[in-house]
């Protein structure tokens, strides 16, 4: 299982256990990063060298990686960075996916689109950028590679267009712009929220800050990972009790998913009916309702390690922590300054209802945690 190194949009790679941090991951990330840079370079300027500029700059900024031994670039001195530097202000992508884990501040000053992550990033950027230039000596293979990549690019554009009809991909990207520091801090807050002082979600010129820059911002990375980990853990727990079969895994997964969907729908319905004008989008609600999987994992682990007593103690602990967390987080969003609106027509019961929604959501969490984990720990 890889560490908490984040690959941004290629997060799926970190899920699969046992993939070593060598050529396999770097190949897959190469292609994707390569295509990303390709697309980005097409957006900024339609020239084919755009990708290598980002590669060159990121290489200068990041530590070297073992995987890049064979792919060392001779054209490190070639820096067509000036056109990119003079380009428009950095797109949302560059702000989202700059590497903030190792080089803490001021990544935005670089301004270039560098999807460079901790370990395998720089080499992949280089490989991505270098491939069309001097990968193959044979020009035919070169041309074929270039043609293939342009085909892949078109396919990617088409898929993006179709998907963006149903949901805004940029909005989704916002939720996955996390880094290791954020994930660790957030997990700490989820398990022990009592010492966290400031629960305000910070804004930057009307747009909420990405999770990288603001610990209070909701993200979808932790819920997704926790959900998958929960399913694997459920399989393991059932296997320990010799009750495992592959169908059970699918059943567990779909049950958990259905509960999430039900909860999100009920929340949306209640927010709509009570005309609560909050800025909670659907993804926000999915994020907040996915945070309970962290508590579930903790509970199941304690139940497996320490038996039935450990299970109940962990259940009580994570329920309280999660209830506190949900109430404090949603209070900021659902119960805004009551002096601004709500002076209009009737419904003096509104502040009450908002409180009811928040508390009901909070109380719903332990119920679901108990429901979904009790059958795993006997």
């Amino acid at each position: 299982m890889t560490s908490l190194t984040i690959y941004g949009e290629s997060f799926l790679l970190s899920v699969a256990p046992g993939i070593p941090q060598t050529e396999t991951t770097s190949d897959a990330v190469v292609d994707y990063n390569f295509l990303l840079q390709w697309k980005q370079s097409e957006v900024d300027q339609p020239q084919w060298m755009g990708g290598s500029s980002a590669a060159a700059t990121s290489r200068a900024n990041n530590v070297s990686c073992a995987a890049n031994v064979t792919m060392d670039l001779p054209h490190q001195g070639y820096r067509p960075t000036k056109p990119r530097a003079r380009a428009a202000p950095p797109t949302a992508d560059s702000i989202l996916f700059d590497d903030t884990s190792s080089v803490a501040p001021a990544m935005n000053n670089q301004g270039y689109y560098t999807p460079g992550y901790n370990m395998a990033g720089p080499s992949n950027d280089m490989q991505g950028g270098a491939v069309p230039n001097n990968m193959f000596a044979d020009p035919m293979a070169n041309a074929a590679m270039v043609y293939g990549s342009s085909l892949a690019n078109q396919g990617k554009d088409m898929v993006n267009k179709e998907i963006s009809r149903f949901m805004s991909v940029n909005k989704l990207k916002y939720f996955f712009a996390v880094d290791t520091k954020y994930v660790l801090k957030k997990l700490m807050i989820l398990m022990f929220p009592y010492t966290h002082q400031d629960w305000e979600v910070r804004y930057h010129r009307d747009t909420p800050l990405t999770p990288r820059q603001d610990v209070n911002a909701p993200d979808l990375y932790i819920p997704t990972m926790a959900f998958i980990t929960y399913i694997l853990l459920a399989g393991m727990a059932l296997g320990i009790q010799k009750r495992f079969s592959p169908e059970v895994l699918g059943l567990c997964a779909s049950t958990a998913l259905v509960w999430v969907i039900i909860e999100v729908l009920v929340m949306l319905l209640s927010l709509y009916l009570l005309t609560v004008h909050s800025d909670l989008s659907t993804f926000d609600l999915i994020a907040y309702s996915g945070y309970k999987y962290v508590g579930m994992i903790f509970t199941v682990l304690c139940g497996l390690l320490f038996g039935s007593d450990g299970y109940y103690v962990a259940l009580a602990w994570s329920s309280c922590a999660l209830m506190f967390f949900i109430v404090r987080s949603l209070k900021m969003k659902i119960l805004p300054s009551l002096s601004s609106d709500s002076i209009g027509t009737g419904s003096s019961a509104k502040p009450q209802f908002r409180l009811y929604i928040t508390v009901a959501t909070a109380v719903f969490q332990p119920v679901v945690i108990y429901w979904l984990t009790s059958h795993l720990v006997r």
Partner: protein
Amino acid sequence: MAFTLYSLIQTAILCINAIAVLHEERFLIGFGVDQGVGGFGDDPGVKAQVLTLIRSVRTVMRVPLIIVNSACIVLLLLFG
């Protein structure tokens, strides 16, 4: 209570069908008639919101429901 995705789909179809076959006048008599109020101002109130929701669901889902129900009938006849 083990849910499958199929049961979720079933529930959704049944609920939307229930909203679609609702008789508005008889429903409104028992619910409190708020139809005259256009809901101007900040908050239309819960009842007006429910009515708006029901009306919009009926308008939007009429045609897709026909398609989905027919597909359901065919599939259930064929596969039980």
